[in-house]
């Protein structure tokens, strides 16, 4: 059997799984974010939070709720990190350094899950479970809430800038979507061999008579939400490359499926919320198209293995697990960078030069193909608004998306959104490779050193969380820089998205006609895809040229 057959086979399995489950989950999601009913358990949560879930919030109030809730999350995690040695189940871990604790707190609250530390060595079970895992749930729910609010804004029939209730969205996202899915996923993962226990470190004598420390723990439960919530923070340092997290090719496919499930379902749910299924289908198509291209290119890059080292070794297997192979690693790599997951089952630093470039480009797309849970949808919708503005003019009408006019104020918000990530990323990379402390963290010099720094800054600014392992990021400089990138990269765009949701909610709906630019046809799908590629390409090609492109061409 050729190598290609299993590579295509696993993709086929994935496509079938997604095709079956995405529309079902989407229907559920659309109900979750539009239904007026509350569950009993949710009412308890609202009472505990002292909020009225039926208040329709103004976008400003919604945004303040998002920011306030997230701030509390950062402070709590930071406190955990600094005080964990005093808490039970610490497994003897000591307090995290101030900068490391900040970076970790921000990282998990922003759904990035950048890990500068080695999870099994630095953190106790309590912090993992009640701190990080909780944030794995709620940070994902926050992203979904913002996307749902944006969709409701577009579906709004005019009047006020009210876009729903954040706390209701948050609680429902956790209670009705993430918890049940994660529960089932965790059970399945346990079933196929992922570890789930509360044992501490166990010393094992290996065949060569050396002593190896094996850390057990509640791995499967964290693994489920790690993928489902596109979080990516692994229980173990080597993440999904670790056999306790991802033991078999089957678990590999399942994990890839889990990380793609909600982002795609959100896109389909969007169509249902705006009461035009075709719109959701169009957005989903763009995501799928970009992901397909990315998977194809990365699989090609890893299987063909261009470059001196892979050619000498007869294959690009450095940093990859034999049980996954090049194709299984490439599929995971593309999926994890195209969603904002950042979990890895191979060492991205060891990807071939073009492969590394593709994973970076995936993240630079702004995590929209299909992106993080929620953030992927609103990111893609913002790009759709840009596309509509440019293309809409070409049909001779002032641009409108789903019946909402894109005027001066709307475009200001879109422009801010489009600016902010490049601003953070490009400033970040300039600082990182200029400051001595930044350069000190790089394993290599020259183009690959640049790639390491670029990957880190890109991953943080786009809230992905995966890394080129060559970078030593556990230093005050990198922790601070990447913490800032993650924080601004997550919340500034969110504020602009919510503001735009408010503007759209206030507008009356303009019914579409023959003269309106249709935003559900293949032509628009192609256009939106091109806009995403061209905008990202024009912004990042120069810096990519000196990193992965030079590496690939030399």
């Amino acid at each position, binding site marked *: 059997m050729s190598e290609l057959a299993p590579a295509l086979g696993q993709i086929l399995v994935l496509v079938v799984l997604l095709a079956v489950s995405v529309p079902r989950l989407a229907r559920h999601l659309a109900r979750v974010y539009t239904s007026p009913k509350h569950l009993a358990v949710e009412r308890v949560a609202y009472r505990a939070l002292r909020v009225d879930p039926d208040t329709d919030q103004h976008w400003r109030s919604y945004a303040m709720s998002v920011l306030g809730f997230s701030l509390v999350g950062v402070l709590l995690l930071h406190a955990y990190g600094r005080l964990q040695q005093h808490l039970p189940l610490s497994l003897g871990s000591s307090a995290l350094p101030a900068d490391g604790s900040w970076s970790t707190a921000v990282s998990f609250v922003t759904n990035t899950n950048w890990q500068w530390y080695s999870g099994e060595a630095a953190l106790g079970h309590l912090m993992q479970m009640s701190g990080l895992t909780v944030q794995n749930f709620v940070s994902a729910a926050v992203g979904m809430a913002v996307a749902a609010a944006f969709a409701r804004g577009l579906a709004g029939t005019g009047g006020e800038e009210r876009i729903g209730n954040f706390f209701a969205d948050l609680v429902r996202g956790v209670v009705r979507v993430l918890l049940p899915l994660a529960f089932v996923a965790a059970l399945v993962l346990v079933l196929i061999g992922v570890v789930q226990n509360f044992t501490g470190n166990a010393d094992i004598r290996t065949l060569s008579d050396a002593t190896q420390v094996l850390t057990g723990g509640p791995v499967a439960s964290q693994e489920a939400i790690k993928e489902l919530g596109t979080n990516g923070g692994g229980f173990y340092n080597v993440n999904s490359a670790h056999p306790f997290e991802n033991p078999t090719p089957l678990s590999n496919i399942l994990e890839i499926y889990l990380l793609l499930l909600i982002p795609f379902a959100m896109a389909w749910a969007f169509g249902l919320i705006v009461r035009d299924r075709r719109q959701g289908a169009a957005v989903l198509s763009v995501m799928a198209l970009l992901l397909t291209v990315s998977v194809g290119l990365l699989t090609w890059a890893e299987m063909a293995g261009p470059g001196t080292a892979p050619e000498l070794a007869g294959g690009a297997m450095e940093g990859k697990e034999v049980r996954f192979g090049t194709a299984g690693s490439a599929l995971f790599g593309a999926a994890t960078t195209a969603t904002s997951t950042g979990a890895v089952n191979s060492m991205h630093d060891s990807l071939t030069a073009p492969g590394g470039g593709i994973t970076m480009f995936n993240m630079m797309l702004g995590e929209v193909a299909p992106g993080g849970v929620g953030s992927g949808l609103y990111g893609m919708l913002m790009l759709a608004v*840009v596309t509509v*503005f*440019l*293309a*809409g*003019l*070409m*049909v*001779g*009408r*002032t641009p409108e998306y789903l*019946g909402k006019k*894109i*005027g*001066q104020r*709307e*475009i*200001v918000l*879109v*422009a*801010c959104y489009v*600016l902010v990530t*490049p*601003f953070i990323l*490009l400033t970040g*990379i*300039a600082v990182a*490779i*200029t400051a001595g402390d930044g*350069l000190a963290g790089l394993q290599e010099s020259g*183009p690959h050193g*640049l790639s390491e720094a670029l990957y880190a800054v890109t991953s943080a600014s786009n809230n992905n969380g995966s890394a080129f392992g060559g970078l030593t990021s556990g230093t005050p400089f990198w922790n601070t820089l990447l913490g800032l990138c993650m924080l601004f990269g997550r919340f500034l765009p969110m504020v602009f998205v919510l503001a735009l949701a408010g503007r759209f909610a206030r507008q*009356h*709906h*303009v*019914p579409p*006609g*023959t*003269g*309106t*630019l*249709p935003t559900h*046809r293949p*032509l628009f799908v192609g*256009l939106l895809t*091109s806009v995403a590629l*061209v905008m990202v*390409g*024009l*912004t*990042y*090609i*120069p*810096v990519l*040229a*000196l990193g992965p*492109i*030079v590496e690939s*061409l*030399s």
Partner: protein
Amino acid sequence: MTALTVKPKAGAKPAGTTSLLTPGQLREALPGAFRKLDPRELASTPVMLVVEIGAVATTVLSVVDPSTLGWLVTAWLWLTVLFATLAESVAEGRGKAQAASLRALQTETTARKVRGSFDQLRNTTNLADLPTAEVPSTQLRTGDVVVVAAGERIPGDGEVIEGVASVDESAVTGESAPVIRESGGDRSAVTGGTVVLSDQVVVRITSDPGQSFVDRMIALVEGSERQRTPNEIALNVLLGALTFVFVMVVVSLYFVADYSGAKQSLLVLTALLVCLIPTTIGGLLSAIGIAGMDRLVRRNVLAMSGRAVEAAGDVDVLLLDKTGTVTLGNRQAAELLPVSGVSAARLAEAALLSSLADETPEGRSIVALVRQDFNTVTEADGSGGELVAFSASTRMSGLDLPGRRIRKGAGSAVARWVHSTGTPATSEVTVELDALVDRVSRTGGTPLVVAEQVGAGRARLLGVVHLKDIVKEGMRERFDEMRAMGIRTVMITGDNAVTAAAIAEEAGVDDVLAEATPEDKLDLIRKEQAGGRMVAMCGDGTNDAPALSQADVGVAMNTGTAAAKEAGNMVDLDSDPTKLIEVVEIGKQLLITRGALTTFSVANDIAKYFAILPAMFVVAYPGLDDLNIMRLSSPESAILSAVVFNALVIVALIPLALRGVRYTPSSASDLLRRNILVYGLGGLVAPFVGIKLLDLVISLVPGI
């Protein structure tokens, strides 16, 4: 006001035949272009301001560290800014020419101004012997008194203070029947531009020059105080954001290049920045806006605001008056339908007699029809008869001959007249006549009933003249186009529903509002707007004013009343209601031009990267030479070629910006497909070709 019904000379030319960019125009525009280099003026276009700052920077760099490349790049950066200001200046120049021709028309009328105090003269002098002096109408001030005799044009708005005259106000009201204007009472106001048909009046002028309608138009056309339109501002914001991103790209590239051991000079980085930011659309954006207004002026439409022009592109519903827009203003006699017992010749003769002295188009068409179809009755002689004029109360007209009276008019009116002579109100004849009337109405025609009374006997009904509304030629095609563009057309008419539906069917409009009162019109507009649709309409009467101001695009006919013109946001000098369709097309074209050039501009960047990036880094990383897919001869030549291309493309596109991109009415999908192909794909490919060609030339320059 005086000469408004005369087309402005330059404006009368169809847009296509006027050369868009002549050397003369450029020469005239140059001083303005240099004035616009002032950074304070450029501040409104951030893209070009960045280019200018870049040009200043490279100038300083070239002075400090002179090099051939440095000076050439500097020169071309300055040219880039200059080409952009030139485009705006040329566009403005065209508006200025329009304004000048409008202004020239104002001075063309001469007025006979009364010398001395009229109040003293009026008691001593005969009206015909007033001492007058000929002055240009533009010199008239409020309070001046002028004498206007038969055949002369009233030189300005004013009131009659002496005399009585019949005045042709068709230029203002569209009503061709002359009206009586006399001193005292409420029929004393006269409007500039109207013509005195008989007698002579003394008029006191009530408006100063500079205050009149035309003066306001001139100010708008010249556009010195041009307000940028909402969409233009929005696009500018987006272009500003793109510019900011590229500034970030270039700044970060400085540090990244430094890290990579391929330190770049500020000169090269500036050149890269200017090539990347959307200078093409940034430089042409205001020219496109000005030219859009100008295209309207060329079609003799004056827009009170650019906002209205943009709104025209968004129109979803077009309200069109039936008469004059959908149909020719005049109804034509199409056939004669006698009742049984009356010969066709008898009806023809009566119809002819009653119409011989009838100078209305309908009357003339009856004469023509009878002369053509019934040779036998041509000798009918109406002399000696007395004409009975049409009046709104009797709703009939006719002719009283010795011993014979003929009436024609609306069915009910004529029936009443017949009945008044003692004829029974209902009989077999009236039933038959009602059937005929109904038949004509159903086909969209207007039935004109003819009756006669011989001697003092009972009058009898003769039959019906079928007056037909003639739908203008080509209207169906235009409405089909509208439909393709997604615009719904609604015909408004005072006719009854049956007639209206028949004409709507024939003309191919989508919908019809029959027996419409001005209030109905207003309600319809409000209803459409409540559904989120944009409405355009045209109108001319005072009772159209509320609807005109409610509509998103309200085109007032220049012949309309002042109230109508005040209420609308555009005025059509030709008073051609079908122009509304062109206005919509111009609005769309304006937006399409912006979108097309933006797409073109952004698509250009891809080729520029392929030119400049290898040029910058090929020394440090020879592998990057693989990206030099255009095989440009040297790094210096590559950078300069990109900069020169970037500047020249602005000049090359000035005519397109002024003319607007080609627009064929079709659905949004078709338009998008075509424009993406031309401007997206074209924008992708063109610079590869252009930069390569420029490189072939530039590589010959010594020192590069």
